[in-house]
């Protein structure tokens, strides 16, 4: 492997949508719960009460961050589990009412593959199309609703292209029709305001490691009165709704992280938007380059560009050799056969979708990082295009 680091030996990390580092301050709050206050929150002695109180206070922090009641927050093992629980939980508990689910074609696989599994169990699923910016149209939602629709699940913001969906509007439709509404807010939290009341949602998924919290912990907001089955059955933890000994340090870290992320939201978003503007401006100077996703209604930290004629893995490989970490929707990276289902749903042809590059900014990034990326990337694109039989002559210099 090539580890031709930049002068300082630092890595320029531009893949915050994949995961973030655990903030050192967050990590500090977790430390006492590994070796000292390690009691099982369910245990009936003082020592364990420290753990229980820590979990409760993290629950309060999460609730406050999304304007929910404390007892509407349930901790899970991550965003994937939250999505699986929300969707299967509603499906199995409301099967008598109906077996139709509506979702979008650009959801995260945690939603899509869950829906596909439910199809094997006899449920019917409508996958809504999106416009070229990756937005679901509310009319499409309305049209898809049937008498037996029990759940609508549409993500708050897309993980690849950053497009923000009209969640409050879809929520209003769902509420009128008395259909449960779930949103995957894994990418949204910490980037845009997330208020369960304003969003009109019944269920909302979160994942700690996307906002400088630890990996392996997430949460599901469940509006009071929502009927859903458990995903993991067992002990009486989480008011008997989510079994398993609580990951106390992880939960404490998630609480601290979400408090920090939401209290710094405006300042953070402003920082991200500034860097994003710099980034997009520089990238679009490169010819035959397109911005994927919505021009304005997108996450402040997300940039997704498509370079025609070339393939994403080779871009990443070269960036890596200059110590830049980024992501692509190309199938070649993931060993799957298909390029990003999101870019395809937005209408990009397969060969174009292969040339995508996702750059997702984080709080530690600077203007210098963006400059370094732009300086490094431009010649990479040129080199790869010079090699590609797809590149038109005049673009090959």
């Amino acid at each position, binding site marked *: 492997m090539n580890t031709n680091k930049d002068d300082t030996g630092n890595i320029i990390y531009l893949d915050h949508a994949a995961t973030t580092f655990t903030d050192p301050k967050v990590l500090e709050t977790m430390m006492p719960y590994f070796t000292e206050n390690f009691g099982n*929150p*369910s*245990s*009936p*002695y*003082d020592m*364990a*009460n420290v753990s*229980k*109180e820590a979990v409760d206070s993290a629950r309060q922090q999460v609730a406050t961050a999304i304007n929910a009641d404390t007892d509407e927050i349930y901790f899970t093992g991550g965003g994937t589990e939250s999505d699986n629980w929300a969707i299967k939980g509603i499906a199995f508990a409301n099967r008598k009412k109906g077996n139709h689910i509506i979702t979008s074609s650009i959801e995260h696989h945690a939603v899509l593959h869950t829906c596909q599994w439910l199809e094997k169990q006899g449920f019917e699923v409508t996958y809504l199309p999106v416009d070229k910016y990756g937005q679901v149209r509310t009319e499409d939602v309305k049209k898809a609703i049937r008498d037996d629709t029990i759940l609508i699940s549409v993500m708050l913001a897309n993980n690849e292209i950053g497009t923000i969906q009209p969640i409050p509007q879809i929520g209003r439709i769902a509420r009128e029709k008395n259909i449960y509404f779930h949103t995957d807010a894994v990418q949204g939290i910490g980037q845009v305001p997330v208020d369960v009341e304003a969003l009109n949602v019944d269920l909302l998924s979160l994942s700690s490691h996307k906002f400088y919290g630890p990996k392996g912990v997430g949460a599901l907001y469940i509006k009071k009165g929502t009927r859903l089955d458990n995903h993991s059955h067992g002990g009486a933890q989480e008011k008997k709704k989510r079994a398993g000994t609580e990951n106390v340090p992880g939960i404490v870290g998630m609480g601290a992280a979400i408090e920090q992320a939401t209290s710094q939201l405006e300042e953070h978003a402003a920082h991200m938007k500034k860097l994003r503007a710099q980034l997009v401006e520089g990238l679009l100077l490169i010819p035959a380059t397109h911005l994927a996703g919505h021009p304005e209604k997108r996450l402040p930290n997300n940039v997704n560009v498509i370079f025609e004629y070339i393939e994403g893995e080779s871009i990443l490989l070269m960036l890596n050799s200059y110590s830049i970490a980024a992501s692509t929707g190309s199938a070649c990276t993931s060993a799957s056969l298909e390029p990003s289902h999101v870019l395809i749903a937005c209408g990009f042809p397969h060969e174009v979708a292969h040339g995508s590059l996702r750059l997702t900014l984080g709080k530690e990034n600077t203007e210098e990082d963006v400059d370094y990326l732009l300086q490094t990337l431009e010649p990479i694109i040129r080199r790869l295009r010079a090699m590609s039989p797809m590149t038109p002559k005049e673009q090959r210099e």
Partner: protein
Amino acid sequence: MILMMYSEKVMEHFMNPHNVGEMENPDGVGEVGNPQCGDIMRIYLRIENDVITDAKFMTFGCGAAIASSSMATDLIKGKTLEEAWEVTNKAVAEALEGLPPVKMHCSVLAEEGIHKAINDYREKQGFEPLKEKTDA
């Protein structure tokens, strides 16, 4: 988790309960609860001129059950039978500075135990037993 929910007062009465023990030739005895559920409470009363001059208890049960027995027997000592009948489980719980919701039934045992003991006395005296109010 239950421990954290116990008040100082509950712990005080649990660790050093008042009025523990059997009573020789009591004037009234009431036993309530069910060992299968993990609780039995027996209340003994000494009664002179319709006034409870002494009360004792024996309890098989959790911390809240023991603390409730201790507090309830404290509360009824010196009271007339009529006054003692009005000592509700809520009064016992309040005197204990609150009980966790899942433990309220332990204080109900105390109320029922007192009622049973009073009725035991009434019946021995040839009176009709008093009726339980059904709002506990």
